[in-house]
């Protein structure tokens, strides 16, 4: 028995009706967007504001305090934008790594059977996640700039390490070819350590025996560069020296970056800690008991049995926290870290092209967030349960 032929445009057919409604809503959305866009363009034209991204090629004229690539006021706006994007990526990248580590440690500490440890962790989570981030940033920035002495009275806890309200100054690698050999040795160490781990895994599968992996990895990662340095008779360091107003040379961690990183990391870690705790608690207790019954130590139960299963619960909400951290980095503008929003805001004020500037900010954050999200989704699929 075959179905009767359906009239394709019959409005009584629920499927046709649903399509009609969808088409209507889509049309309204498109029309509304068109209305707003054409109105904006007409208004901008009436006010005599230039439009388009022609300004990107013009000289920016302003200086930026922290740059990863060479930049000066004579460079075009495009390069200033690049500096801003890189500064945003730097904060987001370092922040995500540190927040993950701190969040995991605090989350596990909340489940500790030690009363003091789990209460401290709980107190940390509640205090940090219930105070607005902007206030925390002002607090850290205030502590760093008001609490530390000026550069001429800088603290020197270790030789060559200076702490002042201009930031933390560390000795950096000087312009010396030895450093490239040291870097090459470190790269080789990483490769060998990965190979050793893989080999050890295979060996364990075959024989059930394990080598103590930690000393081997540490030896490869630190020992190889150390040997190279010894072979070359040491590498020159660029020491920070107080000259004029401030320290010259060395590597600097500015109070702005430090306060922003500290604020973002401690705040986001509080949320990640709760996600990690809930993820671990989502793994059935029977799993732990079974693993203990097999004679595994508590640390290995956590690492080999509980965490791999907990990760499936942890990863999706943690992705949101990573995205939040990235977006919250735009609060940098309040404490003077030159992130992309700060650079774009200055550009808007100098060119008057607010629509283009805001569109650029949105595009950059959208691109960063979508890439991060894609990466995390890929990882999530990788660790997901495989149906066999």
């Amino acid at each position, binding site marked *: 028995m075959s179905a009767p032929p359906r009239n394709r445009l019959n409005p009584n057919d629920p499927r046709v009706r649903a399509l009609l409604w969808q088409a209507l809503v889509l049309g309204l959305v498109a029309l509304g967007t068109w209305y707003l866009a054409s*109105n904006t363009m007409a208004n901008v034209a009436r006010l005599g*504001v230039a439009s388009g991204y022609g300004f990107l090629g013009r000289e920016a004229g302003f200086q930026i305090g922290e740059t990863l690539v060479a930049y000066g006021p004579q460079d075009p706006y495009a390069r200033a934008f690049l500096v801003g994007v890189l500064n945003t990526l730097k904060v987001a990248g370092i922040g995500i790594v540190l927040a993950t580590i701190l969040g995991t440690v605090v989350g596990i500490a909340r489940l500790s059977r030690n009363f003091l440890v789990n209460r401290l962790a709980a107190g940390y989570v509640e205090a940090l996640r219930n105070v607005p981030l902007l206030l925390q940033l002002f607090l850290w920035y205030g502590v760093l700039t008001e609490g530390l002495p000026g550069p001429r009275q800088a603290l020197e806890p270790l030789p060559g390490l200076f702490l002042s*309200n201009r930031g933390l100054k560390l000795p950096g690698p000087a312009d010396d070819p030895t450093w490239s050999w040291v870097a090459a040795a470190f790269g080789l160490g990483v490769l060998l350590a990965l190979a050793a781990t893989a080999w050890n895994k295979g060996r364990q599968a075959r024989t059930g025996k394990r080598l103590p992996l930690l000393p081997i990895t540490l030896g490869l990662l630190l020992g190889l560069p150390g040997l190279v340095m010894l072979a070359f008779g040491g590498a020159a360091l660029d020491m920070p020296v107080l000259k004029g107003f401030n320290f010259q040379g060395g590597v600097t961690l500015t109070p702005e970056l430090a306060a922003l990183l500290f604020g973002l990391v401690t705040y986001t870690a509080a949320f990640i800690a709760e996600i990690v705790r809930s993820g671990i608690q989502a793994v059935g207790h029977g799993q732990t008991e079974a693993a203990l019954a097999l004679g595994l130590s508590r640390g290995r139960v956590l690492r080999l049995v509980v965490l791999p299963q907990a990760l499936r619960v942890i990863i999706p909400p943690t992705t949101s926290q990573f995205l939040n951290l990235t977006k919250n980095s735009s609060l940098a503008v309040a404490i*003077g870290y030159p992130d992309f929003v700060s650079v774009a*805001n200055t550009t808007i*004020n100098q060119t*008057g092209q607010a629509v283009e500037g805001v569109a650029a900010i949105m595009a950059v954050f959208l691109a960063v967030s979508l890439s991060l999200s894609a990466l995390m989704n890929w990882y999530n699929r990788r660790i997901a349960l495989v149906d066999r």
Partner: protein
Amino acid sequence: MSLRFSTMTAALMALGLIGMGGAAQAGPTLDAVKARGQLVCGVNTGLAGFSNPDSQGKWTGLDVDVCRAVAAAVLGDANKVRYTPLSAQQRLTALQAGEIDILSRNTTWSLTRDAQGLDFAPVTYYDGQGFMVNKSLGVTSAKQLDGATVCVQPGTTTELNLADYFRANNMSFKPVVIEALDEVNAAFFAGRCDVLTTDVSGLAGIRATVATKPDDFLILPEVVSKEPLAPVVRHGDDQWRDIVRWTVYALVEAEEKGVTSANADEKLKSADPGVQRLLGAQGDLGKLLGLEPQWSHRAVKQVGNYGEIFERNLGKSTPLKLERGLNALWLNGGLMYAPPFR
């Protein structure tokens, strides 16, 4: 533009959606201000001598008085002003978006800004950018600032002049750029920066009001830019621009003619026809602007002439202790000069 709007209107009407559309263009600013019964004035979030709320939340300052004079001229009451505090970055967008009727917020007149949909009224204060340092650094000239860390607000001509000055003198510097004025000042006084830079009048104000020991701080002698500070209106409403422009000129002219807030009433009967025309006792200058004949009389009587405004907010008797300098009348060697009122 009208074509574009009418096709849009037609398209919306076809969908029965008309009535939700926000008009693309507000009516002339004067009508809007009169209908509202209030002037919306964009001011600084807090700059001593220019726009600063006092302990009762009442706004005072030279920029505030300009708004009060415009309100007196247009609405007859200097108190019919609503102040919108704006950061340096928000101010131009707020004006272009129509959130405020007039921007009176120590804004530098420059070609780029004038050409990007804004119109500048006459200069109300001739300023210049300077540098302030802590005396303990032992610096006496801006030429000695190589390698210094400089606190500056973003999105200002100040930021550009700073970079230009150091470039021209082949010196390097590190900027610390913070959006909120309070936070910039806090960073400077905490010692995060060696130098604070903004307009000299601003530095004097900050030193007088924020520093715990004003005598510890030195404003360096170099003035590195021209900063003519002027009220700003949107481009395209010529009548409103003329009203703001001539209200400012009326304040200057009143000082030149010796009309003050105290004697404005008796000066209505002055024998000088120039004074009579200025105060609207004779002629129809107010009507030409679309205002009532008493417009300028009200402005001067309620707010005072330019000299009174200057002395009250910035002069010798205030903590800022600024000289008239370039802001004296042209008769006294300054730049304050009003075109003829006729």
